[in-house]
């Protein structure tokens, strides 16, 4: 059983620090590969060693598979952690690590292929008996009527060759189906030279709920679910665990489906199965599987007491999972707010720059994952996440109250952040009632005077 001695971290920002934290706890040395823009970052200082991969743009540094593997080998590392984003789900990196004898802290290259594109992932879901959004391809108006019966209304017509909304139509009732179908097929033909379309159920009120999976390739466990419905243009802003007001049977079905999916593809690592919960119908559909550690993993850690990165490393080393499903107990409630250096009043424009003050004192129940410190530079090249505030409470109300305290107490000055938006969400009656859907934030913003 290989034991990792020196770990290469192919990432930046708060997740680099999160990995360094666990590595230090495990007595593993770290080498952080940084771009030129990040050579003075906190991670570069805290890692055992930092090496400059290349210039600031990601494509010249954080996205270079060959450079990263060369850097890992050249610094004597025996393993590589890709974090999230960048190359974390890149099959070529996982394969290059395998070829060079480096332990990739993530799933196998085959796992990455299985979840890599939506169609393959969807076909695996069907084979595993995991529900997907009902739909199918149609060629004639008769086909469409028959299929629409089983799908129900409203539904979406999408071009098979599609993208960019061309050939996409929403149909609210059976009467308008034939005319909309003709339009969609004509648009698809004109736009893509391919008139084929498919019908798909349109979920009017949906929640984004995802399940944390842990697997060593033989044992498949879940660590509960997370609700990430508070999002804007598919960017998650506030996450929580467990998902509030989720019917018990639905929740159980979702957890079991996620485990079934992971088992079906022989998944081996930390991963997340994402679902769309159709609130009016009380059903759920598979969206995709993320084969990496998630940004929002701390809410799961907060209610389980697990160190997910440590488990991810243990599995990559070839160890068997040191726990059973019964030993994963969910206690209390946790919320995460993503503090971004962006200005919600200016169309969420990023606000890079130098941080003049950063203070995140130990408020009860608060955990802060951040790479900020006074004088830290937020470069304009990467995403705008600067800190994750995670609060835990015995109840959801307590977790929210603690988050409001944290937002009042913590200081991050020098750049504009979305902290005021978090305060507005946490004091909003609909959010406090719980169980909001993915339309929630888009509808809340105009009431705050924020242009959307």
């Amino acid at each position, binding site marked *: 059983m290989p034991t990792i001695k020196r770990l290469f971290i192919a990432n930046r920002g708060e997740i680099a620090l999160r990995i360094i934290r666990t590595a230090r706890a495990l007595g593993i040395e770290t080498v952080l590969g940084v771009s030129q823009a990040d050579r003075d970052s906190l991670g570069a200082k805290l890692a055992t060693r930092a090496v400059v*991969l290349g210039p600031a743009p990601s494509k010249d540094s954080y996205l270079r598979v060959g450079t990263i593997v*060369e850097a890992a080998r050249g610094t004597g590392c025996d393993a590589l952690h890709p974090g999230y984003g960048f190359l974390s789900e890149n099959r070529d990196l996982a394969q290059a690590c395998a070829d060079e004898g480096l332990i990739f802290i993530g799933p196998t290259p085959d796992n990455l292929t299985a979840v890599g594109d939506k169609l393959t992932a969807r076909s695996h879901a069907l084979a595993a008996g995991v529900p997907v959004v009902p739909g199918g391809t149609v060629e004639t108006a008769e086909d469409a009527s028959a299929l629409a019966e089983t799908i129900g209304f409203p539904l979406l017509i999408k071009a098979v060759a599609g993208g960019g909304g061309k050939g996409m139509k929403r149909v609210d009732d059976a009467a308008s189906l034939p005319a909309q179908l003709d339009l969609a097929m004509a648009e698809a033909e004109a736009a893509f030279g391919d008139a084929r379309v498919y019908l798909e159920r349109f979920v009017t009120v949906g929640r984004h709920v995802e399940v944390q999976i842990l697997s060593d390739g033989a044992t498949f466990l879940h660590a509960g679910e997370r609700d990430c419905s508070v999002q804007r243009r598919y960017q998650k802003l506030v996450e929580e665990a467990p998902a509030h007001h989720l019917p018990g049977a639905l929740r159980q079905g979702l957890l079991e489906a996620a485990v079934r999916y992971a088992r079906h593809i022989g998944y081996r690592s930390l991963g997340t199965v994402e679902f769309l919960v159709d609130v009016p119908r009380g059903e759920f559909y598979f969206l995709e599987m993320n084969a990496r550690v998630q940004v929002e993993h701390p809410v799961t850690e907060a209610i389980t007491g697990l160190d997910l990165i440590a488990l991810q490393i243990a599995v990559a080393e070839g160890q068997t999972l040191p726990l059973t499903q019964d030993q994963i107990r969910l206690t209390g409630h946790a919320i995460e707010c993503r503090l971004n250096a962006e200005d919600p009043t200016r169309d969420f424009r990023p606000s890079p720059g130098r941080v003049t003050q950063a203070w995140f004192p130990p408020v009860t129940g608060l955990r802060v994952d951040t790479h900020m410190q006074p004088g830290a530079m937020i470069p304009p090249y990467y995403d705008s996440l600067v800190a994750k505030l995670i609060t835990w409470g015995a109840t959801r109300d307590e977790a929210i109250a603690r988050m409001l305290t944290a937002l009042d107490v913590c200081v991050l000055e020098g750049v504009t952040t979305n902290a005021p938006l978090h305060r507005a969400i946490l004091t909003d009656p609909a959010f406090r009632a719980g169980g909001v859907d993915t339309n929630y934030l888009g509808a809340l913003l105009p009431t705050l005077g924020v242009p959307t």
Partner: protein
Amino acid sequence: MAELTRADIDEILKLVDGSDFDELKLEMGDLKLELRRRGASAPAAAPAPAPAPVAKPAEAVAAPIVASGGGSEIPAPLLGTFWHAPRPGAAPFVRPGDVVQADTIVGIIEVMKLMNSVPAGIAGTVLEITAPNGELVEHGQTLLRIQPA
């Protein structure tokens, strides 16, 4: 207006280096500063070819030159393993005391079996080969120092 110090210029160089700009012109009162990234007007180097089992003729990679006290420091244009000689056992490309031209090859940087040749970038006399043979060099790490002609 305050004078531009050496440290200020170093800071400006760093900013330009980390940016997408190839050229900077700065005027402060009587002072005019013009910085141009080496090879800014020249076409960019062709992308590296696919890996092959045998090392092929190496491609030149442009490196920015940073001036310093003891000659000019020639930085690594990319991260990789630095080789002093074209193959193990062969004579090194250059030795201290050698006179080089801007296009003289001074070493090879290997990235995943791809060989990238490193030109001196300036004409002058080699003072010292700073980076050890066969070891990893970071992007921007000093490879050697050259006394400009």
